[in-house]
Structure formats: structure tokens, C-alpha cells
């Protein structure tokens, strides 16, 4: 087995034309940045990355069964 399965959760605008939650497969060693690219999300539209409820960066290597949550920057007042 050379793939991992992760659960991807998208929030707010990142759901537009995509999904709320989805199980996806990626090659072993896939990073958050690769998932974001596959989803067609510009990196600057991601303000917060959580993997299994913990904060991580784009270069974090995902593990099998992990949950990745992505949030856009919301800054208006």
C-alpha cells in the first residue's frame, strides 16, 4: 500500500465549488500544500491549517487516517 487516506474538511469560502467534507487518497508523504494544490485552492486563501485539531504549516507531511481542516482568512469588521 503506497497511499494514505485522509479526511478533508473545508470551511466558509473554501467550500465554493468543492465540498464540506470528503475522504481522499494521496501518495505516502503528501504534504498539506499538495492537498491544497490538488483542490485548486490558492495558498493565500488558506489562513489556518489544522491536522487532527492541531495547528500545522503547509509543509506538514500527512499521515494515514488524519483529518485536515482548512480555513480562509476572515478579517472584516
Amino acid at each position, binding site marked *: 500500500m503506497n497511499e494514505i487516506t485522509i479526511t478533508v474538511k473545508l*470551511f*466558509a*469560502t473554501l467550500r465554493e465549488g468543492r465540498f*464540506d467534507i470528503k475522504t481522499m487518497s494521496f501518495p505516502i508523504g503528501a504534504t498539506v500544500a499538495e492537498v491544497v494544490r490538488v483542490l485548486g485552492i490558492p*495558498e*493565500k*486563501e*488558506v*489562513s*489556518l*491549517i*489544522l491536522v487532527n*485539531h*492541531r*495547528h500545522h*504549516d*503547509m509543509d506538514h507531511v500527512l499521515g494515514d487516517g488524519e483529518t485536515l*481542516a482548512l*480555513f*480562509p*482568512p*476572515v*478579517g*472584516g*469588521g
Partner: protein
Amino acid sequence: MGIREELRSAARDGFIRAADLRGIARAHGLGPAEAERAALEGGIIPERYRRNGSTISVEQQLALLNGTAVVVGCGGLGGYVVEELARLGVGRIVAIDPDVFEEHNLNRQLFSDEPALGKPKVESAAARIALVNSAVNIVPVYERFTAAAAKRQLAGAAVVVDALDSVPVRRELAVACTGLGIPLVHGSIAGWFGQVTVQFPGESTLETLYSGFRGERGVEERLGNPSFTPAVVASLQAAEACKVILGIESGLRRRVLMIDLLSMSFETISLA
């Protein structure tokens, strides 16, 4: 007869009406806030707070009257926050904003109206609050929040409310609050979406929340802000600010409430 006795004899079932309170205050050379304070200290609730009911006790009403909230930003979020804190009975509210009202504010900003266009937002806020609750000391600060001026601008705050519209300035405000030891209630909005959190000194929730952020504005640049989102988020901020002043533990420390009014989902995420 001393003021305590006068207040007590004017009160009915533990409540005193504004006209009676005003008369007693005038006879003793007191302002409206001092009169409310004297009443509350004697266990008498001004009639205007009757419907705070058992949600706010006499002691808590007095604590709110003695409290200072600094609201940074007096636009979509800040307008509603100032209004709600004033009606709640927070005794001193400092409203900071460097802007004047423009036509594109009219879709959502509570203190904006057609005659106010071109006028400082904080002046409209002060005029409005003087009409709503004359016991509130509303302090309009017609200037930009800056890190350099933070110590003066945030002086005396029991709580600071982040109602800004710029992420870099929000970060500066969070750092300033940490340095000054003041709890911060953050709220921000974009389109159907919003988020609220409470950061106490020593916590770094805001830093984490915007860790991947580059630039000045978020998705609100494209989505704009309709009328209802600021009202929702500002009300949540007012509730959290109330709790901070009263020393009631918040469920949003190191956690962020993510609000999606499109799917009507409210999800709290942990930023441990």
C-alpha cells in the same frame, strides 16, 4: 435624609425609575452614573435594567457600571458592540476609529445614517449613546489604533473588543493587549461567515488563527459584508465582553467559534 434613604423610599420592589433617580441625583449634585452607582450599592436596580432580570444580578450590574470596555473599530461590528454594551450598562465605553461615515457603510453600520455621512463614526456613536443611556461615559477617540499609542488608548480597559477591519492591525492589537495584560474579544466577518474568540494574556490564539495569512484583507474583500453578519458576530462579542468584565469563564479561550450563516452551522474549533 441621606441619599441611601431617599433612594430606598423612592424605590418600588427594588427598582427605581429614571425620573426619581434623576431628581435625587440633582438634589445631591450627582451625575447619572454616580446616582446609578449609589442605587446599586444600596441593592436598588435602576428601572432601565429591570429586564436584565436574573441574568445580571445587582452586584454584576454594579460591576458592569464600574467597568471599562475599549472597542477598537466603530464600523459594522463596533457599532453594534457599543450599542449593546451601553444598553447592558457598561459604565465607560471607549470607541476608537479614525474614519468618517461613507455611503457604502449604510448597508450595515448601526450608527451610520444619511445625515451622518462625512462625519466621524465615533462622534455618531457618542451622540447615539448619550440618547440611549446617559449614565454611560462614552469616550469617542477619533484616531487610528496604533501599537505606539496602545498604552494610552487602551488605558483602564477591563476588556478590549477587536472590531477592526485589517488583519495586520488586529495582530498589533492582540500583541498590545498581551503586553498590557488585557483580555481581548476578537470578532471578524466576511460575507455569510464570521469568527469569534477570546484571548487572555499569555495565549496566542490570534497569532495561530492568522498564521497563514499574508496581506491586508481577507475574503471580505470579495464577499463584502451584508447587514446581518456584523449584528450576529458583534452580539457574540458583546456577550463575551460582558463575561470578561464579570469574571465569568468563557468557552472560547484557545477556541474559535466558526460561524457559517449560509449553512447555519456554528462550529467551535480548538487551537490548543
